[in-house]
């Protein structure tokens, strides 16, 4: 894509951001409000020598991108609601076998079929805990079309660097919203590639980590005779069904994210320095909150906005940092609220919305006025 200004939706920006980051393989199944990502990829990937395939379902889609990633390709899929629920088993496989992939989830009103065309934010906890077991994952969530494009590059960089699936959250509002966007020149961004083995085949253990806890990743066809299994495995990749092997492997795949959490955290802090009350809001919802914060400031209320862009690993130090009270405004019945409560010293209030629309600025303002001194 030529550098310059474009008028794109969040979906188009997610697709183009992926391609810009180096993604050359997409497998997906259409589902509102993410379908335009698949459509864009079908059009664009073959132009750049990439591959697009529409699979029979979301389970097949994620299986295909995991397989493709093992060949060395940067691979992604996109889905929403029911589709992300179906993908969760193989998200666990990607976590366990440490395969870099990016999964876009355009959140809609839920549960079940819910509100396919309307906004929701009910998938925060699922992004973290969706597959069975205790594991760490990376999840990012932009709030504008520009940020969607920019953050997709980070998503691929994180996936490659940490050998982990990245759940890239969008919401129905952002997915379908068009905004002006600037595409930078090809060489203006850093693209991270997965670490490759330095030892020759035969000497390299497939799951032997370096000091950063991340093992180098050979590709299929390079002679390394990779064996990868969703079973608990040792450094050779061979199944080893013991408590000791479980302890070693699961501790490492959690710690490789936890120990690098601060490198992964991205947070927007808006008028928080002197704030008595900070609203925590994510994605497009943070935009109406920002309007309300500005209005509240005009009324003399010391309000601020804290917007986690990295949802997982949760940027808890930013919550600990402030001694203000918190209002968590999210489009669900309380998810990130619980994380904020876990780390806040003072009062934490939940301002929920069940889905279908963003918080209106006056709803936030109404809650903030209680903090007028």
């Amino acid at each position, binding site marked *: 894509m030529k550098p310059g200004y474009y008028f794109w939706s969040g979906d188009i920006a997610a697709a183009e951001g992926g391609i810009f980051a180096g993604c050359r*393989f997409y497998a997906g199944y259409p589902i509102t409000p993410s379908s335009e990502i698949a459509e864009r990829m079908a059009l664009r990937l073959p132009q750049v020598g990439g591959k697009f395939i529409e699979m029979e379902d979301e389970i097949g889609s994620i*299986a*295909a991108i995991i397989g493709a990633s*093992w060949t060395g390709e940067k*691979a992604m899929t996109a889905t929403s609601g029911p589709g992300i629920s179906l993908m969760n088993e193989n998200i666990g496989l990607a976590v366990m076998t440490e395969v870099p992939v990016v999964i876009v989830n355009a959140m809609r009103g839920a549960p079940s079929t819910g509100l396919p065309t309307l906004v929701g934010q009910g998938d925060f906890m699922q992004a973290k805990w969706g597959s069975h077991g205790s594991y760490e994952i990376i999840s990012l969530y932009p709030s504008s079309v520009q940020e969607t494009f920019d953050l997709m590059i980070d998503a691929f960089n994180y996936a490659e660097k940490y050998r982990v699936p990245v759940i890239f959250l969008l919401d129905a509002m952002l997915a379908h919203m068009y905004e002006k966007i600037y595409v930078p020149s090809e060489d203006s961004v850093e693209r991270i590639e997965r670490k490759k083995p330095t030892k020759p085949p035969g000497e390299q253990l497939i799951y032997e980590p370096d000091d950063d806890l991340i093992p180098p990743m050979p590709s299929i066809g390079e002679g390394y*005779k990779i064996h*990868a299994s969703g079973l608990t495995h040792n450094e050779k990749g061979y*199944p080893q069904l013991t408590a000791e092997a479980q302890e070693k492997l699961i501790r490492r795949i959690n710690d490789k994210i936890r120990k690098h959490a601060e490198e992964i955290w991205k947070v927007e802090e808006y008028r928080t320095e002197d704030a008595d009350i900070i609203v925590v809001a994510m994605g497009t919802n943070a935009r109406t909150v920002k309007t309300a914060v500005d209005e509240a400031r005009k009324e003399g209320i010391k309000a601020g906005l804290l917007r986690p862009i990295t949802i997982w690993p949760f940027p808890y130090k930013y919550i600990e940092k402030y001694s203000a009270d918190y209002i968590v405004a999210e489009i669900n019945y309380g998810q990130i609220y619980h994380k904020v409560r876990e780390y806040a010293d003072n009062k934490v209030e939940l301002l929920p919305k069940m889905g279908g629309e963003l918080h209106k600025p006056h709803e936030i303002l109404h809650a903030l006025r209680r903090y007028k001194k």
Partner: protein
Amino acid sequence: MITAKKKSTMELLRDNVESLLRTERFPHVWCPGCGIGIVLNAFLRAMIRAKKDPNKTVVVSGIGCTGRAAGYVNMDSFHTTHGRAIPFAVGIKFARPELNVVVFSGDGDLFAIGGNHFINAARRNHDILVIAVNNFTYGMTGGQHGPTTPTGAYTTTTPYGNPDRPFNIPHLAISLGAPFVARWTTYHLMQLQNSIYTALNRKGFRVIEVISQCPTVYGRRNEMKSPLEMMEYFRKFSVRKDGATFDEMELTYNGKIVVGVFRDVQGIPTYEERYNEIIRRAQK
């Protein structure tokens, strides 16, 4: 004078087969008398005969007894999730069409939980060889009935006999346009090996069903207490008929097993070949 004894052809073959196995992982998990090892052996011998490069071959398995096969081959190999070997393999093949991609998995994995992937991958004609080991049951979990258990058979979840109807796998594969479809039993070692050899030299979605014995949890509940009795059944009741009708391919409880190469057509474009044309158009 003592001279080194020249190795016999059989010994050389065994050495070659062993080079394709992760023998350090032996003993394997399969029960004594299990048929999966016979199928794996046939596959490896066919690989050698077809001179396929093990560094450019990928074996993908799902979950179950047969799903463990990927763990024993000394090639790039993946033990994936239950039912998902085929779409995982599709991702590999589509991304790197130059690789030789083989799915080696069981009947429950491929046709029950993975059935949707099987039919769609066959329809699209991905260039993948599927070796489907059919032992009539879910062995790993203790012998429950599956999508291939013959009607009337006794399993742990059909204690009064199976009311269910099994898949007719060759019929299914042919109906979807799969260009190469064969069925053998573990008794037909040479024929099986020949079919895998042929299939390795063909293109498209190739399906080889191998009827295999599970004496441990299937045979002993169905009047065949030993591996030998199951092999005897395969020997006595199988009939080779390459031009069999779909009805003849149907399997019945302890009944006739029609084996053979039911379809072998060439020249059907694979998905990967058709996508090359898409790339050409997109870049025009």
